């Protein structure tokens, strides 16, 4: 139970970092070209600094394990969110064109449209898998106390035979997806509903 708490803490940190930094980067990218270049650079850095290299770096700086895992997974997903936002399938919807015609910022409306993409919500939901995988990797490689007790550490130790763990993970993923959907798309938390977008 204690281990699940650390995982939840890491997931919450990761999702917060991914949402805030990702949306900020994406919004900034709509406003300026250098920001787009920075997102491209960060995507390359995401490939170069794999989470299992970056997490021990943060740990060596004295960060708590749950925090290091959360920040690293969050940063990884934030870059993905920004990339998805900036490579939108740019159909110009009537509401978007209408908004621009009325004098609203094109970048702001485009960013709002981009953040409502399903891929952005999906990326945030996949943060759960990233966190658990990272916990498992660190539990193998570093054997930290919190990491060992976390959900990822538990799976790495062979706790996969219990259906409870998998169901818990699925519920966590779907909950994050529903929450992200609610915040970013203004949709009903009912996952199977197509819902109604709030503004776009």
């Amino acid at each position, binding site marked *: 139970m204690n281990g699940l708490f650390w995982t939840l803490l890491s997931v919450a940190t990761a999702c917060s970092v991914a949402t805030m930094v990702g949306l900020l980067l994406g919004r900034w990218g709509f406003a300026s070209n250098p920001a787009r270049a920075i997102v491209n650079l960060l995507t390359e850095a995401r*490939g170069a600094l794999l989470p299992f290299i970056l997490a021990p770096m943060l740990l060596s700086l004295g960060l708590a394990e749950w925090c290091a895992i959360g920040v690293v997974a969050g940063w990884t997903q934030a870059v993905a969110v920004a990339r998805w936002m900036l490579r939108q399938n740019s159909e110009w919807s009537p509401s978007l064109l209408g908004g621009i015609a009325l004098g609203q910022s094109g970048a702001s409306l485009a960013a709002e449209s981009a953040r409502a993409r399903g891929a952005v919500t999906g990326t945030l939901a996949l943060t759960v898998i990233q966190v658990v995988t990272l916990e498992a990797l660190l539990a193998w490689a570093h054997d930290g106390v919190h990491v060992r007790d976390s959900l990822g550490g538990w799976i*790495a130790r062979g706790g996969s035979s219990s259906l409870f763990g998998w169901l818990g993970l699925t519920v966590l993923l779907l909950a994050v997806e529903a929450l992200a959907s609610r915040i970013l798309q203004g949709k009903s938390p009912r996952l199977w509903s197509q819902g109604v977008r709030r503004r776009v």
Partner: protein
Amino acid sequence: MVESLRRLFWLAPLLTLGSGALFALLTSTLVPPPPGQFAFFNRHPANAEGEALLALDLLEHDEPRGSARLVELGGAALPHVLSRLDTFAVKRQKRIAHALWPLVVRMGLDDSTGTATGDVVDASDYQLIFWRQFYEEHGLDFRPLSVQRLVKRLAARDLRLRRADLLVVDSFALPALIEELGRVRTDADVERVRRLSGLIAHVSGRAFELPRAASISQAHLLATEIRVFWDRHSGAFSQMGKLELLGARITQTEFSIWVRQSWRQLNGVDASSLVPRLLRGGRVSAPLFALALLGALVLGPALAAWVQVLQMRSFGSAGRHAPIRIILAFGLCTLIPGTLLHTSGVNWMLGLSATLSGTLSSAYLLQRELADRIDWRTRHVLSRQEGLGRVRAVVRWLGPSIPTLAPLAAAEAAIWVTCLELGAHVHGLGQETIHAVASADLPWLMMAGLSLGVVTGGMQLVCDALLGTARLRWGEA
């Protein structure tokens, strides 16, 4: 096209900046530089004159380290010490001459008279006179150009006389000797390394001798070992002007050493310890990485498209196919960690796990993307079309998402493969990288980080170009 070219031209400076940033990150956290070494800037670089004066200071203060350091510096320190000898008091001169005395044997000079007297006072007088005469006779030998010529002749042919001439200048010849080691590819190169390494070992006091019947690879390894030693110790044996000393603030750093060593390894001058590890690990990891990417970029999108086409069979049927998303999420949560972390070492199982992980994660993401893009109006129109029409529409919507996904999927595939290797206890590149993190193996971490960064950057460049072309072609931009 212009955008792609512009980004291509930026790759080289970005790579330089990126390697600096990665090095800074690693040395400030995981791999701190050894004591006395600096990552990027050395405020007090070593040079032969500075080191010689430092050793003289130590000697003046009766520190035993002083005489040991003078002997270690050897010929490189002699021009600076002997030229200043007359400026010191006689007692100090004698002490210096005595401290330098072990060099006489190393330099192959006759010391019989000095030791035969047995009288301490006479011996110290003799030693002082000896060094004064030595500097008068051989002072002109301590010039880089003449030493370089001697070394080149020795490298070309085995001449005992040349060897004796070089022994006289002792470690003053080290820079030229090491530069002359060169590439090792043929038997003639092996002979050259043998001649030079013998002298280097004698002068530096390190075990750098090459066995009689050494192979080319043995000679190559020894030449590499000598150059690696020289990368860290060259400063103390090098004669530097003011400008060179200024440059040494940058060149005598860990980053500069890493750049030099990497460059030599890339050019084949040095034997690389990374390449065999890379090849050994790559045999395991490359197929798994390729399968994970295949799953993420081909099978995953295909699965997502299939699910979406199924969902669009009739207008308003989204609710009936709702469990698909939950099934995908459950599959993602059970199969990915389950197969990644608990796969046996059987090849096909590993391959299947890698493919499944890539497929499921990208199918989930793309299905989520498609489900939100296709609103009720589109669904209404497409539900009235033939099957093929629906497929074409879905593929057209899905297509542009794949180039966006590709560079992200590459990084994730690397993580999946590492999990697989650790779970199945298979020795691949991922496991090697985890060990490198634990053992602070800087060259490996730099190589892994930079090569993955280049792969991601290259994929991003190609994919963005593809995306631009697709938009132009399909009129979406």
